[in-house]
């Protein structure tokens, strides 16, 4: 029983994610992308710059053999969490809808933002919960065509939206120009978000809302002690 944190060439938040989960009592192991993780009870695709982000962010990792393994686990309902580059990979792989394009500002945005829970996925994270989490990305602007956007709304696939501290949603609290202020998506057992919960998992890092998010996610894997 353990959560596998996948390591692609160019991943750089893998150990942070593993440490954050381990501190929550989750049994976790780092898995090189060529190695097997068929027995995993949860999979994390960490942040970073997989394959140098060549072609498009996450595009090459999304077509690597490891994603076949992720797809197989997701089909069985095993929880999958993509963080930042991991979210980009899941969208490129078609496991989550839409795509992540260059920020409206054209800038790499490295800042703390608020996000609001739009889909309750575990106890301790009801709809309306506001978390303060750091983002660090240049390609984080969620895009989709109109039919997909409607389907995402209708199917309740928006997990997190950027918001103000009081939970209100407006363009002013959208750091990258994402359609519908999307910060994270969920489709069945697959979840992805641009913010970095593992960078807000200890008070010394400036916040602990990331630990709350990861606790809620880990409770879905059944691996939390």
């Amino acid at each position, binding site marked *: 029983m353990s959560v596998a944190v996948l390591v692609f060439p160019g991943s750089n938040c893998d150990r942070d994610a593993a440490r954050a989960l381990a501190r929550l009592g989750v049994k976790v192991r780092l898995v090189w992308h060529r190695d097997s993780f068929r027995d995993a009870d949860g999979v994390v695709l960490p942040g970073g710059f997989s394959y140098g982000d060549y*072609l498009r962010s996450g595009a090459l990792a999304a077509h690597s053999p490891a994603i076949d393994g992720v797809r197989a686990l997701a089909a069985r309902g095993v929880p999958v969490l993509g963080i930042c580059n991991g979210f980009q990979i899941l969208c490129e792989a078609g496991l989550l809808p839409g795509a992540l*394009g260059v920020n409206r500002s054209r800038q790499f945005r490295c800042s703390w933002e608020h996000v609001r829970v739009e889909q309750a996925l575990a106890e301790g994270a009801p709809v309306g919960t506001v978390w303060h989490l750091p983002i660090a990305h240049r390609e984080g602007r969620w895009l989709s065509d109109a039919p997909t956007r409607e389907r995402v709304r209708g199917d309740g696939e928006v997990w997190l939206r950027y918001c103000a501290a009081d939970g209100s949603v407006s363009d002013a609290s959208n750091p990258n120009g994402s359609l519908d202020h999307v910060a994270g998506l969920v489709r069945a057992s697959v979840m992805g978000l641009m913010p970095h919960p593992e960078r807000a998992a200890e008070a010394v890092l400036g916040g602990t809302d990331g630990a709350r998010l990861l606790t809620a996610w880990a409770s879905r894997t059944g691996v939390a002690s």
Partner: protein
Amino acid sequence: MAQFKRVVAVDLKPALLDPEGEAILGVLQHLGFPVTDVRVGKRIQVTVSAEGPEAADRAVAALAERVLANPVMETFQLQPTEGVPR
């Protein structure tokens, strides 16, 4: 099987904002060029093994559709291959 070279052009969909193109447009206008629009795309040259030119076109279209372009935000085109050995 013979080797065939093909050139694939990948562009952002026209409806989508192109921040890189927008930045280049700003610089060009600042320099006084009479530019009104800039779009940045990618040009990718691939060599495939295939039975013939038509099979090569099909193979390249398939890999372009699946990997080289993201249909959510990009379109692709096999470009004329003048000057490129068929």
